């Protein structure tokens, strides 16, 4: 199971990559592995606004339904449309092609509530 350096992580197993005011959000390698083959993704609409930890969509594996929570507050500026037809990218490339959404942060200080990759590694080992 890999984690990726330079990202922030939530306890719900989302990762966050900061690109200025914008963040890219996805689910971790650990999360995709726990979920199994992802066969359906339901993502929010562009321009929708959410508070930190709001439910913003759903990923479904063959067996299970699992909610996606936004680790940060803000406005959706882009969703990964590719996933609607190729949700398996979440399994194949969770940190890259399998990204879920891009969000414009409304409160950058919330980043301080997330874990770095070392902390996240310890978190999943302790789970």
């Amino acid at each position, binding site marked *: 199971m890999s984690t990726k350096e330079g990202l922030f992580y939530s306890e719900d197993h989302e990762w966050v990559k900061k690109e200025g005011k914008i963040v890219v959000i996805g689910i971790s390698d650990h999360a995709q592995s726990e979920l*199994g*083959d992802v*066969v*359906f993704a*339901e993502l929010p609409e562009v321009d929708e606004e959410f508070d930190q930890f709001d439910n913003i969509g*759903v990923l*479904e*594996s*063959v*067996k299970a*339904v699992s909610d996606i929570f936004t680790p940060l507050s803000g406005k959706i500026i882009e969703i990964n449309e590719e996933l*609607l037809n190729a949700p398996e990218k979440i399994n194949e490339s969770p940190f890259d092609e399998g990204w879920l959404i891009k969000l414009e942060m409304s409160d950058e200080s919330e980043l301080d509530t997330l874990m770095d990759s070392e902390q996240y590694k310890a978190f999943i080992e302790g789970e």
Partner: protein
Amino acid sequence: MKKTPLNEIHYELGAKMTDFGGWDMPIEYSGIIEEHHAVRNACGLFDVSHMGEIKISGDNALEAVQRLITNDAARLSVGDILYSPMCRENGGIIDDLLVYRTGEESFLLVVNASNQIKDFNWIENNLLEGAVAEDLSDNYAMVAVQGPESKKLLKNITDLPLDDLAYYHFFTGKVADKEVILSRTGYTGELGYEIYFNPSDANHIWHKIMEAGKEYDLKPAGLGARDTLRLEKMFCLYGNDIDETTHPLEAGLGWTVQYNKDNFIGQKAICKFHDHGFERRLVGFKITGRGIARHDYEVFAKGEKIGSVTSGTHSPSLGKSIGLAYVKKEFAKTGAEIEIKIRNRMVAAEVVLKPFV
């Protein structure tokens, strides 16, 4: 949690495990979709040792079995198998099971793991005189070898004449030098075999099958693939699609009810449903919109609730979302347009009455 004799092997193989009716069972090894395709295109090996086995024997065993099940065990010669519901007086399905005729007056009933104790109590309480029931579930381990390559594979480790074994028949003999019951049965809709043996032989038999399976691309397969495989063939799963609140006719199991045989438990009620009709029917559906239906999701047509989903999944063979649902009888027609409520969204679906694959 209860463990099958193959439990350690599942952990060694890195399976994801789940609590399935009190049993610690593998849900997947390499991934449900990969295992599903292995069974459809090559072969898969399943541990199904959690299944229960109940023996009914004695001078009056045939009559005793006949009273308990809706199908006709008198049709069976020794070596034959049939599928049957076992019902309550009101027609509610206690379990669905396989009946192996192992002797003139000896039968082995293979029952769902989650129902084993309930079934055995029911059988004991409703057994005719001159018959004896024994719960032999601890005496048998069981694996299923399923898929188009399963026969070729097994020929490497048994001398039993598999070419002469028809669907729903069984042999007793040796596989990998161990005494087994080997039947041409399964829950996948593919050519396949189920093998019963002494639990102490489980590791040996599993490894011999895995070894022989290398050249046939055999993969160990878990309950996840077992579920997608059976759902594509529209086989009922007890606890999802059928239970004590459903009767065989509405579940589409009318072909397993033999009205002409002597008194069996549930006969009166089922005859009444047959003669006077019933309200709902189990149907297949494929989703034409976007989403996956799950157990208990509501089904609508023209804004009115007409039923509920009993099983739903992503079909790996079709790449589509499919399922089973009870709907009002007027909607049990091929192509009928229905809607399924998925998280407050109405998603279009279409009724399908024949197996999806």
